[in-house]
């Protein structure tokens, strides 16, 4: 079969045909590790036909590893003394969770520093939520109105339709199919590199998947129904006894566990989904159908909030975003008994994500649809521009399902890096042979790694930290005093948010910059039917910045690592542990980055 060879960094290309020995001469004058890859489409797994060229002494890798060790040590040294705010609020509790919601555990300060070092007390953060950007008249008009969100949704819906059509009817050659290119390269890269880090979960409110169900529930697009009424088709037999409206989402599913496991299920099939336009289209259609059925039977956006495999990690990673919807003054909310923002009013619908805005402390469960901005008749809700990572400042009262999501996403990033970017062709074929005996082994290994190995290692690190702290933990006393248990494990998992996002960005950068040049021909010839709508159909495959990818990845990884280490110390301090309790988890974070650097660069 005809293959090609392209060496990243040196940007030399040749073609290899059976029986025609090809050759390539270049001077290896740059040290480091360079991926070389097939340059001629050779089948579905072609984008993943990758090898590695090491030009010794590979100082770039050594420097990157040294930098991550130094960054860890530096961050630990600088933040070793405790930084504690006087008052900590609750996190991500929402009304929809009803009585099971893990309400705030701690409002009290940590009064007794166990290691006797006086805390550095920061000024209360409440005064500074950030800048209420929705108070700027132009933004207010845009965000309060419904045309913007509707307009973007119609656009994404249009693109989505083309994706489905090209997936169903277009060429099975993924590189030249609009569906594959615009979902797994363009949208995925936009989500990881841009939408989540800047806009948090905003994508969810313009996502085309729930749009049909949403519009059917509201039976309106622009002008809200009186009192924010929603229409569902829960029949008598499907109604919950005693409730007039839609069936409430089952209590045991009111968490993001289903989203995490949904993502894992997709990860198991990803070698197939990523490379087959038809399977991609069918998967997306399945999403739309499930979302439609759920929204016709259940309350509000139950699919997006509790089921969507993408929504889970978008929410968790969205905590780093500098944009947030929060209330301006909690006292105003406390005095306001109607809670239009939750129930809905003539001005708009109750929060589609079952949030009570006054309880919002993180972006995790907020899609920034602006519904509360519209319904609040006291102008007490705003879009804030805040310091990135503000949502992570409180490590108390964290939820286990979100912690697991962070761990699973971290593990999945490693699996993808090994299976898709790694050199093992047999592994790739196994991963794509869904249903074969070997694939079941692969699936079992993947699940054990993501569900048991990585979370288990993290749990061990947290336990080791407690052992190192070796004093009756502050948390223990709080538990004894009757408050709900506060998970130290979940608290430490906040560190996985910047770390995991950085690792995903590094993975996405390498994959996207290499292949994004397929986006131009796919735009002109979405089906691979020989069209040339915009004159770009003839543009060939050219990896962008192939020599610079590692220099983009390294700073991102180091920044994520520093933030993660800072959060481990913060967790230790906020949970009343000594600083050294943070060491094992910091080490876990550092080794994750070193392992990823080694996978890519050595």
């Amino acid at each position, binding site marked *: *079969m*005809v293959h090609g060879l392209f060496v990243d960094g040196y940007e030399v290309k040749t073609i290899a*045909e*059976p*029986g*025609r*020995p090809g050759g390539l001469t270049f001077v290896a004058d740059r040290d480091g590790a360079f991926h070389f890859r097939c340059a*001629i*489409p*050779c*089948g*579905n797994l072609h984008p993943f036909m990758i090898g590695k060229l090491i030009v010794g002494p590979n100082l770039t890798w050594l420097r990157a590893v040294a930098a991550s060790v130094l960054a860890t040590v530096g961050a630990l040294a600088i933040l070793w003394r405790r930084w504690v705010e006087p008052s900590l609020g609750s996190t991500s509790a929402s009304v929809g969770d009803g009585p099971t919601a893990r309400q705030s555990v701690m409002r009290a300060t940590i009064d007794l520093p166990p290691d006797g070092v006086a805390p550095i007390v920061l000024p209360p953060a409440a005064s500074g939520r950030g800048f209420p950007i929705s108070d700027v008249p132009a933004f207010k008009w845009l965000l309060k109105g419904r045309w913007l969100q*509707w307009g973007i949704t*119609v656009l994404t*819906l*249009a693109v989505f*339709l*083309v994706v489905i*059509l090209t997936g169903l009817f277009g*060429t*099975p*050659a993924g*590189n*030249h*199919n609009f569906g594959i290119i615009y979902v797994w390269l363009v949208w995925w890269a936009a989500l990881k590199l841009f939408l989540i880090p800047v806009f948090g979960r905003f994508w969810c409110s313009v996502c085309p998947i729930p749009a049909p169900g949403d*519009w059917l529930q509201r039976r*309106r*697009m*622009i*002008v809200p129904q009186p009192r924010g009424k929603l229409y569902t088709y829960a029949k008598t037999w499907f109604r919950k006894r005693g409730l007039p409206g839609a069936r409430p989402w089952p209590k045991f599913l009111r968490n993001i566990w289903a989203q995490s496991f949904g993502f894992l299920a997709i990860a198991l099939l990803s070698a197939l989904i990523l490379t087959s336009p038809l399977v991609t289209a069918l998967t997306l259609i399945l999403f739309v159908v499930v979302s439609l059925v759920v929204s016709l039977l259940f309350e509000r956006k139950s699919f997006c909030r509790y089921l969507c495999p993408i929504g889970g990690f978008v929410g968790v990673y969205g905590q780093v975003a500098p944009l947030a919807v929060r209330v301006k003054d909690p006292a105003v909310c406390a005095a306001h008994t109607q809670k239009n923002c939750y129930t809905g009013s003539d001005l708009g619908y109750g929060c589609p994500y079952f949030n009570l805005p006054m309880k919002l402390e993180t972006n995790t469960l907020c899609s920034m649809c602006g519904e509360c901005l519209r319904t609040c008749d006291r102008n007490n809700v705003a879009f804030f521009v805040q310091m990135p990572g503000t949502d992570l400042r409180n490590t108390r009262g964290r939820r286990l399902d979100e912690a697991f999501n962070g761990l699973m996403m971290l593990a999945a990033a490693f699996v993808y890096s090994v299976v898709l970017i790694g050199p093992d062709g047999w592994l790739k074929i196994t991963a794509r042979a869904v249903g074969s005996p070997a694939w079941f082994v692969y699936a079992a290994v993947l699940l054990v790694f993501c569900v048991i190995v990585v979370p288990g290692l993290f749990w061990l690190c947290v336990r080791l930290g407690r052992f190192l702290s070796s004093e009756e933990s502050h948390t223990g006393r709080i538990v004894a005093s009757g408050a709900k248990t506060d998970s130290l494990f979940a608290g430490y998992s906040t560190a996985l948010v910047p770390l995991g996002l950085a690792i995903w960005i590094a993975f996405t950068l390498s994959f996207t910059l290499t292949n994004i040049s397929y986006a131009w*021909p796919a735009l002109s*010839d*979405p*089906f*691979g*039917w*020989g*069209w040339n709508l915009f004159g770009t*159909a003839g543009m060939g495959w050219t990896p962008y910045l192939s020599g610079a990818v590692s220099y983009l990845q390294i700073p991102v990884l180091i920044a994520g690592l520093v933030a993660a280490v800072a959060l481990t110390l913060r967790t230790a301090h906020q949970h009343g542990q000594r600083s050294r309790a943070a060491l094992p988890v910091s080490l876990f974070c550092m080794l994750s980055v070193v392992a990823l650097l080694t996978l890519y660069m050595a």
Partner: protein
Amino acid sequence: MLVKRRELFALFVVVAVVLGIPAALFAYQAARQQRSPDGVRVVEMVARAPEQGGFSPDRLVLQAGETVRLRISSPDVVHGLTIPGLGVNVDEIYPGKVVEIAVRPDKPGRYAFACTRWCSVNHWRMRGVIEVVGAAAAPAPTEPAPLFQQLGIDLDVMPPTPTALPVTRPMASAGATLGVALPPALADPASRRAIAPAAFQALRNDPANAALSDADVWNLVAWAWLKDVEPATLARAESLYSRDCAACHGPDGKGKGPAGVNLPGMVKMDPTMPRGPLDFTDAGVMLAASDALLQGKLLRGGMGTGMPEFGSLYSDEELWAMIAHLRTFLFAK
């Protein structure tokens, strides 16, 4: 009724998008697929790896004198297309791209077409045929039977290994400068093709050549077998070899090409059959075989060995040139 108007507008836009986009896309494609303004018929052809079905359609019926626009696409890997009888050669059918060519067969007949890029181990099975029917089908001129049939050569019986083999590589150019007249049977291409290069023995025994060393007689043999082909034709054969043969027989002719390693049907065959693609540098085999025998092998193929037939793809001139090229693995030019 501002409310209603806004809602209706929004609904209208969404319905227009949902219905309009598929409609527009498919209408555009339908318009493209229709006869072009010049009335040319468009035939869609998909080229897949042979395990996935090869060319579809792999049989086309055209009218003589009719122009047809072939639109060929590949869903998997890079393929190529050659229709030797119609002078069509497409080097690359890139997956996801569409290649358009106009075909206008003038004479009725059967025209074979084939893939020209090694798209899988079964690449050589990827063939098809265009049948051209004419309104007034002139009776096809009867072609003479190929030489190996005229001579009654049994292609499956290998001639015995010659007793005398060259010690050094024979050189045709050295043979040409000797100034020795070849016997008429070797000087004339038509009769020479029936003779195997093992004819060395006859030349050696010829008293006229008594003064020549063994090596010079071998040079003479090399010249006799290469002299009939023009350098340009030989170069054409070389490129055909690299396109069609090298994957199995290897670029050096030693039969160790990457595609020839595990040919289907090779392992369980009759143990007396060759164990892999023929080594063209093997003097014992190549010197025992006449050009006519080699022509037969090329025309008929290897009968279960994975060696395809090239009779339907190569012209007579190309066949003889290819045989001369095969000789160059043993004889230097």
